[in-house]
C-alpha cells in the first residue's frame, strides 16, 4: 500500500474501529479519532521532503484495477495542485477533532462520521480516476449531513437536508458529464490523465456543454453566485468543527475540481468562459463582502466572507496566468487556514457566551487578552493585511487578473479584466470595514458587565487554534516554500490550457 492510500484510508480504519467499541467509552473514541487523523497528517507530512517540486506531473502514483469490466481503476496520485490541499485537509481535520472534544452528545457517532468525512475529502483530492473521484465526492455528503443534522444549531435539520439536496443536485450534472466523457473518449476511459491528454476529442459543441455541466457541479460546491444559498445556512447551523471543515476544505473541492477537470479537459471552453467566470468572481467578491457587512451574527459574517474569499480564488483562476493560478491555489490554502481559525474562534466565544451577536459584547479585549490577540490577528489576515497570509494570495490573484492577456472588452473600449479587477478591490475595502467593525464592537469600547466571568482560552482550544495562527504569520512572511510546491504544476497547467488555443 502506498503512502497516498495510507493517508486516505487511515481515517476510515479509525472509523470502523470506533464503530466496534461500545459507546460508553467516550475517552477511547476521542483517542482513536485523534490518533487516526494525526497518523493521516503525519503520513502526508512524511512525503513533504520527497515530493519533487520540479516535476509538474503526478507523483506517488498507485494504480490498481478495480472494476475491469467497466474500466474503473483505483488510481491515485498527487501533484502540485492536490498536495497542498491534502496537507490542508489532514491538518484541519486533526485540529477540528481536537476542537470537538467538548462534544458530549453521541460522541461515538460524531467521530465515526468525522473520520469518514476525512476519507471522503482526501479521496477526492487524490483520485485520478473520474469514477473514483465521483464516488468519494458522494461518500462525503452523508457524513456531512449527519454532522450538521445531529450536532448543529437550532435549524440543523433544515440546514442538513438543504445542504444534502443542493450538493446532490450538483453531482447530478457531474455524473452526466462523467458518463458523456467516458463514451466520447476513444478508447473509453475514466482515467483523468488520459482524458486530459486526449482532450482534443472533446472540442466543439460537446466540449462546451460538458464543460458547463461539470462547471455547475463544481460551482455549487465553491459556491459561485447564484448557487451560494446553501452555504450561510449550513455554515451557521453546523457545529464549530464542522464549519471549519466546510469552509476550510469542502469549498475547495469545487475550485479544485475546476482546475483539475473542467479547465484542462476543455481548454477551449474554459478560455471562452474566462470573462463570465471573471464576472462571477466579481459578483462573489463584492456581493459576499456587502452581505457579510450586513450581518450581526459573527458566524454568519464569517460564512459570507467565505463567499467573498472564494471570489478571489475564482478571480485568479479566470485570469489563466501563472500568477493568477498560483494565487488561486494559495488563496484556497490561506482561506482554509484563516477562516478555519476564525470559525474556531467564534466557536470559542459562543461556547462561553452562548451568543454570537456582535452587538452583545464590548470591551472584551482587556478581559480576554489572549483571545482578543489571536482573533484580531486572524481578522487582519482575513481582510488582507500585508505581512499575513491572506495578503499574499489576494495580491497574486488581483495581479494575475490585472495582467491577463485576454483581449476581451466591456462597455465599449475598456479591457474587461482590468475593469472588473479594479472594481473588485471594493471587496477588500468592505471586508476591512466589517472585520474592523467587529473587532471594535467586541473587543474595544465599554466593557459589558454581563460578561464579567468570561474565561480566556483554555489549553485544548489553544492547541486547536495556535498552529493555524502560526501558519498564518509564517505564510505571510515566507510564502515561498508553499508556492514552490505548486509552481511547476501550475505553470504546466497554464501552458497546457492557453497553448491549446
Amino acid at each position, binding site marked *: 500500500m502506498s503512502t497516498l492510500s495510507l493517508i486516505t484510508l487511515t481515517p476510515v480504519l479509525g472509523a470502523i474501529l470506533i464503530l466496534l467499541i461500545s*459507546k460508553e467509552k467516550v475517552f477511547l473514541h476521542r483517542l482513536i479519532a485523534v490518533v487516526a487523523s494525526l497518523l493521516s497528517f503525519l503520513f502526508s507530512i512524511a512525503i513533504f521532503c520527497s515530493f519533487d517540486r520540479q516535476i509538474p506531473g503526478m507523483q506517488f502514483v498507485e494504480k490498481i484495477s*478495480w*472494476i*475491469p*469490466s*467497466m474500466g474503473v481503476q483505483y488510481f491515485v496520485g498527487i501533484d502540485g495542485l492536490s498536495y497542498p490541499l491534502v496537507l490542508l485537509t489532514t491538518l484541519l481535520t486533526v485540529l477540528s477533532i481536537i476542537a470537538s472534544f467538548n462534544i458530549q452528545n453521541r460522541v461515538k*457517532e460524531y467521530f465515526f462520521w468525522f473520520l469518514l468525512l476525512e476519507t471522503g475529502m482526501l479521496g477526492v483530492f487524490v483520485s485520478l480516476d473520474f469514477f473514483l473521484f*465521483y*464516488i468519494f465526492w*458522494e*461518500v462525503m*455528503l*452523508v457524513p456531512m*449531513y*449527519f454532522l450538521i*443534522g*445531529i450536532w448543529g444549531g437550532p435549524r*440543523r*435539520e433544515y440546514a*442538513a*437536508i438543504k445542504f*444534502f*439536496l443542493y450538493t*446532490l*443536485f450538483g453531482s*447530478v450534472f457531474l*455524473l*452526466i458529464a462523467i*458518463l*458523456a466523457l*467516458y*463514451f466520447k473518449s476513444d478508447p473509453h476511459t475514466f482515467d483523468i490523465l488520459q482524458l486530459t491528454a486526449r482532450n482534443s476529442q472533446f472540442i466543439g459543441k460537446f466540449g462546451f456543454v460538458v464543460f458547463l455541466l461539470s462547471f455547475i457541479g463544481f460551482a455549487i460546491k465553491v459556491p459561485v453566485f447564484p448557487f451560494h444559498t446553501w452555504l450561510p445556512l449550513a455554515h451557521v447551523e453546523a457545529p464549530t468543527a464542522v464549519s471549519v471543515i466546510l469552509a476550510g476544505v469542502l469549498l475547495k473541492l469545487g475550485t479544485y475540481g475546476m482546475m483539475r477537470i473542467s479547465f484542462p479537459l476543455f481548454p477551449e471552453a474554459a478560455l471562452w468562459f474566462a470573462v463570465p467566470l471573471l464576472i462571477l468572481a466579481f459578483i462573489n467578491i463584492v456581493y459576499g463582502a456587502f452581505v457579510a457587512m450586513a450581518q450581526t451574527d459573527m458566524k454568519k459574517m464569517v460564512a459570507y466572507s467565505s463567499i467573498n474569499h472564494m471570489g478571489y480564488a475564482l478571480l485568479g483562476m479566470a485570469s489563466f496566468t501563472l500568477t493568477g493560478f498560483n494565487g488561486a491555489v494559495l488563496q484556497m490554502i490561506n482561506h482554509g487556514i484563516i477562516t478555519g481559525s476564525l470559525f474556531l474562534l467564534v466557536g470559542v466565544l459562543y461556547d462561553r457566551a452562548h451568543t454570537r451577536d456582535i452587538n452583545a459584547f464590548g470591551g472584551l479585549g482587556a478581559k480576554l487578552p489572549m483571545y482578543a490577540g489571536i482573533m484580531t490577528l486572524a481578522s487582519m489576515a482575513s481582510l488582507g493585511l500585508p505581512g499575513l497570509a491572506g495578503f499574499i494570495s489576494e495580491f497574486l490573484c488581483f495581479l494575475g487578473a490585472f495582467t491577463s492577456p485576454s483581449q476581451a472588452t466591456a462597455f465599449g473600449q475598456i479591457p474587461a479584466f482590468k475593469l472588473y479587477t479594479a472594481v473588485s478591490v471594493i471587496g477588500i475595502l468592505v471586508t476591512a470595514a466589517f472585520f474592523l467593525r467587529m473587532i471594535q464592537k467586541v473587543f474595544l469600547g465599554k466593557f459589558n458587565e454581563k460578561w464579567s466571568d468570561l474565561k480566556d482560552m483554555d489549553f485544548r482550544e489553544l492547541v486547536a487554534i495556535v498552529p493555524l495562527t502560526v501558519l498564518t504569520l509564517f505564510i505571510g512572511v515566507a510564502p515561498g516554500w508553499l508556492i514552490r510546491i505548486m509552481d511547476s504544476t501550475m505553470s504546466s497547467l497554464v501552458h497546457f490550457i492557453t497553448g491549446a488555443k
Partner: protein
Amino acid sequence: MESLRLLLPELFLSGAAMLLLGLDAFLKERKKCWVLFVSFLSLFITFLLLMNHPETGVAFGMLVTDPFSHFFKILAILSAGLILMISEKDPELMGENSGTYASLILFSVVGTMFLSSAKDLLLLFLGMELTTIPLFILAGFLKSDLRSSEGAIKFFLIGAFSTGLMLFGISYLYGLTGSTQFKEIYEWYNKSQLAGADGILFFLSILFLLVGLGFKLSLVPFHQWTPDTYQGSPTPITAFFSVSREAGVIVVTLRFFTEYLSRSEMGMTPFFALLSILTMTVGNIAALRQDNLKRLLAYSSIAHAGTILIGLVAGSPLGREGVMLYSLAYFLMSLGAFTVVIAISRIKGSEDISSLQGLAKENFPLALLMLFFLLSLSGIPPFLGFWGKFYVFWAAIEAKLFYLVVIALLNAVVAVYYYFRIVRKMFFQEPQVSSVGVSGVQKQFSLELTTLVVASLLLILGIFPQGLIAWIKGTATILP
C-alpha cells in the same frame, strides 16, 4: 425427455409445493416446523439443480432455458427463501396454515420461473397467472384484517382485468399472425410491412399486451392498485411482491420487446421512454407525502420500476445487464427495508414513519442497517443500489438517451428527500417516551440475521462489484 430434463427445477419445485399443501392437512399443529424445513430444503435443491444445469435449450418449443432466465430464476428462489425466513416467527402467516402459505409462495416462484423462460404468448399468459393467483391469496392472508382483504380484492380485480386485456391482445395477435410463438410473430411482422388495417390491428394488439404488462409492473398510469395492496398485505408478502412478480414480468417484456420486436423498428422507444418518465416521476412525487412506511416503499417501488425500465428503453445488451443488476440490487435493498419495517412493527405495533423516531438511540445497529438500505435505495455509493442505477444510466447514455438520464437523476434527488425523511426521524429526533413494546419483544433472530446478511451483501458487493458484474455479463445472453 430432453424437454423434461430442461424443466427439472420447475418440476421439482412444483412437486415440493404440492407436498407442502398436503403437509398442512396431515401435520399436527406442533409439528409445523417441518413445513419450514421442507420448503427450505426444496428451495435449496432447486437452487442446486439450477446451478448444476449448464445446458441451454428450448423445452417443448415454448420455454427457453438460457443464462438470462437462469439469473432471474435464481433471484426468485433466493427471494422466496428470504421471504420465508422473515415470515418465520409470524403467528398469522406461519401458524395454522403454514403449509398453505409456503406452498403458495413456491407456486408463485414457479410462475416466475416459467415467465422468465417464456417464448410463447400462451406460456406468458400461463406464467403470469401462476405468479399472480397465489399472490391474490397471499395478499389477503390476514383474514381478520380489513385492510388486507381490501388490498387483496383490489389486487384481484385489477389483476383479472389486466389479464383480460392481455388475453384480448394475444387473441388478436394470434388471429393476425397465426401463431403464439414470439419468433413467428416477429417473422410475420418482418414480412408483412404492416400495410393497411393489419398494421393498425397489430399495433392495437401490442398495445393491449403492453397495458396488461404495465398493470403487472405497476407502471404509471396503471399503478393505482399498488399502494393499497402493498399497505394491506402482510409485510413479508409486500416484500415478495416487489421482487418476484416484477422480475418475471420484466424478463418477459425484455424478451418480447427487445429481442423479438425491436422497438426502434416499430417506433416505440418514445412510448417506452414516456412510460418510464411517468412512472419514475409520479412514483417519487407521491412518495413524498406518505407517512406509512409500507405505502412509502410501495410508491418508491413504482419509481424504481420506472428506473429499471430505462434499461429496457436502451434495449442494448448493456441495458439488459443494467436491468439484471438493478433487479438484484433492488431486491436486496427493498427486502432489507421491509425486514426492518417488520422488526419495528413487532416492537412498536405501528408501521408509521413516526414509529422509527429516535431509533438510533434505542437500537443503533438496527438504525444503522436501515440507513444502509435507505442509502442504497437512494443510490449513494458505495452501496449496490448505486451500481444498479449507474449501470442503467450507463446504458442509456450509450444509447444517447440523455434526456432520460437527466430526468432520472433529478428524480433521484427527489427520492433522496423522502428516504432521508426516514433517516431524519431515526437519527435526528429523540425517541418517543411513551413507546413501550406492545406485547413484550420477542427474540427476532431470523430478522436480525436477514438484515445483517442483506446489508453486508449490499456493502460488500458495492465496494467490490467486479465479480458480480462479470457474472452478470456472462449470463446476459439470450437464446433465440
